[in-house]
């Protein structure tokens, strides 16, 4: 049996970057790029690559439901709320790259195995994808009472959606630190830096723990960095883990940097790259799952 067909909703920066990544996938065949702006650069690029496009958005999929089993939504939180309902009615797997947070949160290196029963999964935020694995890495060795992350991204890589909804970033990321990272409490901070040339995405993770086996935490963090690197090659441990003790316990500090693969946006847009790379990892997992189910059905038949 061949690849599983997938569509991308949204032909902006994220959708277009995701398109290039899916073209390399051994599991997924990108069958459609759906936008709503006929003259968008993303749709033009898709047509040049021989990918079917439409500027009718999700309606095109409603009219041609056989064209995709998996749908990546790279539109906006507001649009996804509407799309989620339609995709569920069509029986499609929805992988949500917006901060709509309708379905359960997924971070491929942390909880990919637990999400296969869901029909709508959410990728949290770029800051969440970069930092939650580190919190989970600490938490599996020493329970994290409080996790705090600071994501600094280049101004150029923050689109109007992020800018107008900056609170959604902090709220959704903080929730992810708890629900997926395993921390008892979470806080997220985002900073936009306009330096030119643009800075790489950098994230600092602070964890409050009481027991502190430095060697075990360091080893766990390094293993987790490798796990993330398997789908985000530009992910790298910049500093730490650093250990400091104060009157309230131990503070573990970890700094990571994300260099983008440069598929559509330049390498400084590591924040977009980590989202699209995570989406591909999640999509491929679903694709394998769908193929197995198809095989079972075929065997029974």
């Amino acid at each position, binding site marked *: 049996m061949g690849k599983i067909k997938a569509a991308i909703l949204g032909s902006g920066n994220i959708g277009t970057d995701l398109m290039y990544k899916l073209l390399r996938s051994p599991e997924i065949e990108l069958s459609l790029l759906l936008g709503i702006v006929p003259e968008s650069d993303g749709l033009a690029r898709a047509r040049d690559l021989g990918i079917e496009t439409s500027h009718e958005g999700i309606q095109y999929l409603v009219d041609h439901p056989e064209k995709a089993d998996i749908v990546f939504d790279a539109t906006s939180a507001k649009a996804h709320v509407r799309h989620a309902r339609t995709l569920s009615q069509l029986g499609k797997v929805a992988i949500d790259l917006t901060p709509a947070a309708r379905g359960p949160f997924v971070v491929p290196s942390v909880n990919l195995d637990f999400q296969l029963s869901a029909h709508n999964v959410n990728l949290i935020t770029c800051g969440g994808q970069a930092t939650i694995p580190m919190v989970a890495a600490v938490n599996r060795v020493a329970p994290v009472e409080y996790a705090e992350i600071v994501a600094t991204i280049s101004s150029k890589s923050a689109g109007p959606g992020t800018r107008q*909804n900056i609170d959604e970033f902090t709220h959704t990321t903080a929730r992810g630190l708890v629900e997926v990272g395993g921390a008892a409490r979470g806080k997220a901070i985002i900073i936009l830096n306009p330096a030119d040339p643009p*800075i790489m995405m950098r994230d600092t993770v*602070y964890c409050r723990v009481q027991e502190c086996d430095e060697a075990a935490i360091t080893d766990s963090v390094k293993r987790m960095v490798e796990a993330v690197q398997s789908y985000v090659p530009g992910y790298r441990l910049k500093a730490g883990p650093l250990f400091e003790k104060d009157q309230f316990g131990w503070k573990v500090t970890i700094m990571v940097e994300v260099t983008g693969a440069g598929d559509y946006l330049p390498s400084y847009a590591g924040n977009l790259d980590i989202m699209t790379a995570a989406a591909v990892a999640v999509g491929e997992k679903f694709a394998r799952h769908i193929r197995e189910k198809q095989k079972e059905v075929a065997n029974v038949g």
Partner: protein
Amino acid sequence: MSANASKGKIFLTDMTCRDGMHPMQHSLTPAQMAKIVGGLAEAGVPTIEVSHGDGLGGSSFQYGFAAASDREYLAAVAPVLGKSELSVLLLPGIGTKPDLEMAVEYGATVARIATHVTEADISEQHIQLSKKLGMRTVGFLMMSHMGSPEKIAEQGKLMESYGADVVYVTDSAGALIPDTVKARVSALRNAVSCAIGYHAHNNLGLAIGNSLAAIEEGATHIDGTLCGLGAGAGNAQTEILVAVLDKMGYETGVDLFKVMDVAEDVVTPLMLRPQIIDRAALTIGYAGVYSSFLLFAKRAAEKYGLEARDILLEVGRRGAVGGQEDLIVDVALQLARQKQAQNPEPAGVR
């Protein structure tokens, strides 16, 4: 007080219990704040700002945990405000809309929404919410020295379009000099019809002088702190602003002797160190680095055997913006590695 004919009103905001939290390492207690705020209100300071140094929601590993929650501070000062207005600071990306709603419940009537000088568009939701909550709303363009006068005009216009009643040129690094203050205030004045404010840091010893330069170009809202207590070398000293503005014939409505008494009798005894321009603070002004990096750089310097000045210069070279305190440790680690590579002394030989 002054016999001079009035040249007009200047609206002072005292931020001893906000910017002053930086040198206090956010350790002021609600009771201490209530005493300071009570004194300021008694002296007739029209607007008094209370928050973590990095605004609502700022209590964190990244910026330092405050001795109490935002809620506890606001609740403590609310009963002693008298006729003064209570202001809170909020940096989108750190604080969120629910923080603002909470502050209103405790009687805050002024919200100052702060962004880096080029990033005004992240303040739209917060400025709109603040207006909806009926607050006087101030747009705060931080690190103003990093934006050209044209940029400030453009970004100030955005904040005004979202609903800001006042837009500030905020010299977070204390890096501006009178000419560059004037260029920014005048560009803003030509671009917006709302009121204009100026916020100084004293890293180059120009906090009062720059405030006067801003007033000369039409700024009517000026920030200060008692004893100058604030990030870096501190801010324009409120009691000095009151005295100087009075001598110049501006009305502030503040009682000079009362305000100088609060400074010396209440604030001075609480201070952890004198508010001076030492070499690290001067470096901040000279290199144009966020003033609250001062203590973080000093701590990292001590920990990794470096000079705070070298860390601050490198952080400046990398174009750090406000809030990037985590970059200081990152840079210090790199400098320490470089130092060791150049001079591989065995440990303990020194």
